[in-house]
C-alpha cells in the first residue's frame, strides 16, 4: 500500500489572468514533515487553500490518502491552519476549543484541557482571545488544529510574527506531535532556516512552480562542502573512488554526478585516479553552501 498521504498533480490556480499556482506536483509521505518553502507570493497559501477546500483549482488534481475521490470526507482527517489564526476573539480559549469539539463531533471535553496544556495555554484557558498576544493566538490555533487528532496537519506560516522563543516552542510542539501522535505535517514558510531543524522533506516553490522537491538528507548533502565530479561513466567512477582511493563518503546524484565528501584538500589525486583509468572528466569542482544560500540560489535572492 502506498505511503503517500497527500499528493498534487499539475495543480493550477489562476486569479484573472495571473497564474498563481502553475502545474504544481508534489507528494507528502506518511509520518514526514514536509516544508513548503518559497518567497512571499510564491503560491504557498493558495496551494494550502486548495487543499483545505477554500479555493477551487483551475486544473490538475489533488489526492488525499491515495484518492482524488471523496475529498470532503478525507478532509475530515486533516486539520488546517491557513494564514492568520482563525479564532473567535469574543470567546475564551476554552470555548474556542469547545466549538471545535462540537464541530468535529468529539465526544468528551477531557482532551481540551490536555491540549491547552500541551500548547502552553493551560493558565489562560478562561481568558478571552481578544486579550491574547499574537503568539498565544497562534498556539491556540495550533491547539484547535490538533484537538481532533488529525492524521495530517497543514500549517501555513505558523511561526509568522512570533518571537524567537515562540518559534522554538512551536517547533518543539510540532516535533512532539510527530513523535507522539504520528502526525504527517505540511508546513510552509518563506524562511528556510525556520524549517531546517524540523522538516524531513522540502518542496521549494517560486512563482507558483515547483522548483525542487528534496529530502532533508539530500539537502544536507547538497549543502555540505564536497567535490562534484561528472564523468562519462558514473558507475565505473564510483568503483574507482572506492577501490583505488578508498573513498566511502560519496553520493551519486541522478546517475549523472558524484558528490565526494572526503579528500577535499586533495582534488588532484582524485582527478589523476579518474583520468588514469581512462575516463573523461566532464566536471570537477569544489562546492558547498549554507541552507539559506542553497534556497536563495533556487528561488533567486532578489525575490526574497
Amino acid at each position, binding site marked *: 500500500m502506498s505511503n503517500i498521504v497527500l499528493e498534487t498533480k499539475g495543480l493550477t490556480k489562476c486569479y484573472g489572468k495571473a497564474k498563481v499556482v502553475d502545474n504544481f506536483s508534489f507528494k507528502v509521505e506518511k509520518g514526514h514533515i514536509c516544508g513548503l518553502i518559497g518567497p512571499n507570493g510564491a503560491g504557498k497559501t493558495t496551494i494550502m487553500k486548495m487543499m483545505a477546500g477554500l479555493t477551487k483549482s483551475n486544473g490538475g488534481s489533488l489526492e488525499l490518502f491515495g484518492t482524488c475521490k471523496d475529498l470532503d470526507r478525507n478532509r475530515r482527517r486533516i486539520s488546517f491552519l*491557513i494564514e492568520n489564526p482563525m479564532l473567535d476573539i469574543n*470567546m475564551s480559549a476554552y470555548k474556542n476549543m469547545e466549538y471545535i469539539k*462540537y464541530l468535529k*463531533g468529539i465526544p468528551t471535553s477531557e482532551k481540551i484541557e490536555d491540549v491547552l496544556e500541551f500548547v502552553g495555554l493551560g493558565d489562560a484557558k478562561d481568558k478571552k482571545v481578544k486579550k491574547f498576544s499574537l503568539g498565544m493566538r497562534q498556539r491556540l490555533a495550533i491547539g484547535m488544529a490538533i484537538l481532533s487528532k488529525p492524521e495530517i496537519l497543514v500549517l501555513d506560516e505558523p511561526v509568522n510574527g512570533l518571537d524567537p522563543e515562540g518559534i522554538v516552542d512551536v517547533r518543539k510542539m510540532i516535533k512532539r506531535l510527530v513523535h507522539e501522535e504520528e502526525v504527517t505535517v505540511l508546513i510552509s514558510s518563506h524562511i528556510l532556516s525556520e524549517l531546517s531543524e524540523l522538516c524531513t522533506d522540502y518542496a521549494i516553490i517560486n512563482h507558483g512552480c515547483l522548483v525542487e522537491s528534496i529530502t532533508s538528507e539530500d539537502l544536507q548533502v547538497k549543502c555540505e562542502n564536497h567535490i562534484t565530479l561528472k564523468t562519462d561513466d558514473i558507475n565505473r567512477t564510483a568503483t574507482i573512488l572506492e577501490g583505488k582511493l578508498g573513498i566511502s563518503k560519496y553520493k551519486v546524484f541522478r546517475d549523472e554526478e558524484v558528490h565526494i565528501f572526503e579528500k577535499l584538500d586533495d582534488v588532484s589525486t582524485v582527478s589523476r585516479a579518474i583520468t588514469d583509468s581512462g575516463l573523461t572528466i566532464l566536471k570537477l569542482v569544489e562546492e558547498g553552501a549554507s541552507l539559506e544560500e542553497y534556497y536563495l540560489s533556487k528561488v533567486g535572492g532578489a525575490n526574497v
Partner: protein
Amino acid sequence: MFNLIRAELYRFKNSGGYLFFMILASLLGLLTVFSTGFDTKFEFTIMLSNVTQLSYNMVLLVCGTLLTVFIGVSYNNRMSYYEIMGGNPPHKIILAKTLSMGFISALIMYIPTAVLLLASYINSGKQTIENPAMVFIILFIITLHTTISFILYAMLGRNLVLASFVPYIRLGILDLIVYMLVFQEFSEHADNKLLYITTNSQMAHLLTKTGDNKLLFIVLISSAIECAVLYILVYFVYKNKKFK
C-alpha cells in the same frame, strides 16, 4: 449536520452576547408596546394591522441586524471556514446554518408579536377571523422566512459590512419598492399579492383581508421562492469556493 448545528448554536450562545441582546431587544419591543398604555382589548384584527406593523418590524430590524452581524463577523474572523475545512459539503453547511440560526432567531423575534396577538385574542370579545390559530402559524412562517432570508443574504455577502445592511435592505428598500409597485393594486385586487407578501413586512393587512388557507399557501410559496433562489446562489458560492 448535527455537529454543525451544535457548533453553530454554541458559538451563537457564547460569542459576543448576540443571543442575549436579541432576546433583550425582543422583550424590549414587547415592553415598549405595553408601556404606551396599549389596550389589549382591541379587536384582534386591529391588533394585527396596527400593532404588529410597529413592534414586529422594529424587532425584526434590530434582532435581524444582530443576526446578520453575527454571520458577517464569522466570515471576517474566518470561523466559518472551519466548517468548510472540516470537509462538510456546501448543502449541509447552508442547511445547518439556516435551520438552526433561522429557527432560533425566528422564535425570538416572534415572541413579542405573538404575545400581543394572544393578549388581544384573549381579551377582545369580538373575533372577525374564523381561524385565529392559523394567523399564529402564518405569522411564524413569515418570521422564519424573514430570518432564513437574512441568513442567506448575509452568507451571500460573506462580509461584515454587507451583512450588517441586510435587514435594512431587505425590510426597508426591497419592501418599499415592492410596496410602491404593488400595494395600491393589491388593495384593490387581493389576488395579486405574491410579490408583495414575498417581502411581507406589512403582512398584517393580508391576514385581515384574505382567507386563511389561501394565505397560508401564498406565504409558503413565496417563502419557498425567495429562500430557494437565495439557497441556490449561496450554494454556488460555496461550490465554487470563493473565500478569501
